[in-house]
């Protein structure tokens, strides 16, 4: 900035940032590395590469079914949450009505209330109607959890939509519903996909509500937890590496769809 004045801070900042990356990625990298290592307990010295933990995980019998359960519940919850979120986002974006701020606050609440409390609450209701202990009950509760994040991403996208597009469609004779489905919906697609991925992640990673509500049909985080409290199992590294691969795919999707929305430089289209 000022000539002749050497500033040490950017260099220090980069060193600090590098250390922060080490802290943030250490557990992820080690988990993947030790999923391919023969060590019974992760540590030095390394004892050579192996796929034994993957074979053991396939034989082990609870982790893969749990992954299957999660891949059933999370996409379903994300899809319903995104649909609900889209319509709500459209209404919130277009209309004014009394109590709008209150409604916005209530919609955000499931994210702010600790999932621990929601878990106990959901169990109370579901046990009353004898729906607890099923995958379906996890789906019902996860929809509540993932609607708000999906909605906020879609709303971000819709707020970039010029009002005139919709008005033009009305003037040209489209009904409101036609306009919504043929004009607004296509425009919102990046937001919808980004919102879906965010919703999927929230559900896929959710532990404590699923722990309270699920019975024998566990989702993956619950199955991992039940193994974890019993012992340290290197098969967890194997399932972990697979889960991280799924997360990485989601992350790439987010990078392509979500971040352009947040940074909003390259979204000034037509």
């Amino acid at each position, binding site marked *: 900035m000022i000539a002749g004045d050497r500033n040490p801070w950017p260099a220090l900042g980069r060193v600090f940032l590098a250390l922060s990356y080490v802290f943030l990625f250490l557990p992820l990298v080690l988990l993947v590395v030790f999923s391919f290592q023969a060590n019974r307990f992760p540590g030095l010295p390394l004892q050579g590469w192996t796929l034994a933990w993957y074979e053991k995980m396939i034989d082990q019998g609870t982790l893969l079914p749990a992954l299957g359960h999660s891949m059933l519940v999370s996409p379903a919850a994300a899809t319903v949450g995104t649909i609900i979120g889209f319509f709500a986002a459209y209404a919130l974006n277009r209309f004014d009505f009394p109590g709008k701020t209150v409604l916005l606050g209530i919609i955000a609440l499931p994210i702010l209330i600790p999932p621990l409390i929601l878990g106990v609450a959901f169990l109370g209701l579901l046990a009353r109607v004898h729906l607890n202990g099923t995958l379906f009950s996890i789906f019902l509760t996860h929809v509540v959890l993932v609607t708000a994040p999906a909605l906020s991403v879609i709303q971000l996208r819709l707020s970039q939509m010029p009002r005139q597009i919709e008005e033009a469609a009305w003037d040209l004779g489209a009904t409101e519903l036609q306009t919504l489905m043929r004009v607004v919906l296509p425009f919102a697609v990046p937001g919808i996909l980004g919102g879906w991925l965010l919703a999927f992640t929230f559900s896929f990673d959710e532990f404590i509500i699923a722990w309270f509500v699920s019975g024998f049909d566990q989702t993956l985080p619950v199955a991992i*937890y039940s193994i974890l409290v019993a012992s340290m199992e290197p098969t967890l590294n194997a399932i972990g590496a697979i*889960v991280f691969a799924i997360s990485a795919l989601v992350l790439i999707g987010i990078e392509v769809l979500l971040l352009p929305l947040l940074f909003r430089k390259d979204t000034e289209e037509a």
Partner: protein
Amino acid sequence: MTAAAAGDAAIGAPARARRMRTPNDSPLKILCLAPIVIWYAIFFGLPLVFLLWIGFWRVENYQSIPDVSLQNYQEIFQNWVVKSRYGLAMLQSFWVASTTAAIATVLSFLIALALVFAVPARRQRLALLFVIAPFWSSYVLRLYSWQTILSKNGVLNSMLKAVGLDDWRLEIIYTQIATRVGLVHFLTPVLVVILYVTVINIDRTLIEAARELGASRWQAFTRVILPLSRFGLITAASFALIMGLGDALSGALLGGGAGASVLGKYPLYSAMLMTDYASSTNLPRTSALATILVVAMVAMMALGVWVAERARRRVSE
């Protein structure tokens, strides 16, 4: 509505006359909001009502019986400092959560500052993406990985041993320090996003003006950047505090249930609530415990707002 439409059609008005009078007046308003309102009412509002209500139920012969009894609350407060020691767990929770929130907020603020001021603008997006990346990975698995890193013969200690630093062994697994490590790792990506958005939106000309007028870098930081980041910092810290109070996993897996802190070997309230339910499946008592946690958190937030408000008023006077 239909009568009016018919009238319009009769005098030859175009078809759109039967539609909305203003863009704000449309049946879609209700139709689009209905799904979220209904789903929230049934699967969010109703459970919370049940939570409050079931707290007053009785348990007889392992059966929950609808009632309006204070039995659960009496039991909990009788055991507030003895036997189950719910109160001490609450204290432990507030202590661990508030220190964690402070550490995570400072760490995330430093990362956000480094991102904004030490990374060239065109690389910032990628740099931020890498900070957020761990957030997308499974939290349970990350805690498991921290367990293998921090445990007695784990990755860190075996590394220290390999380089001959046996005396520096870390003995933090199953203490609240390990709990904090897991929580900070969980919170950092979220807090960095909040604080990055805060810092990037600070008008650079203000900082340059301060420097031109002779402020040192430190003064520019404490007098310009810090005050302008205050709102983001408060948001981040409150978020971290709520998450820390509500999280049961790190306390259970890294804190080992009743991990030691300077206060002593007490579990976190949330972890205790989970084990309490797992061992007793006494839903009425668990509901009462959860209700108490909600009340404590709301009270704490109200206190925070009150303190902040007072501080603001004193400054403006």
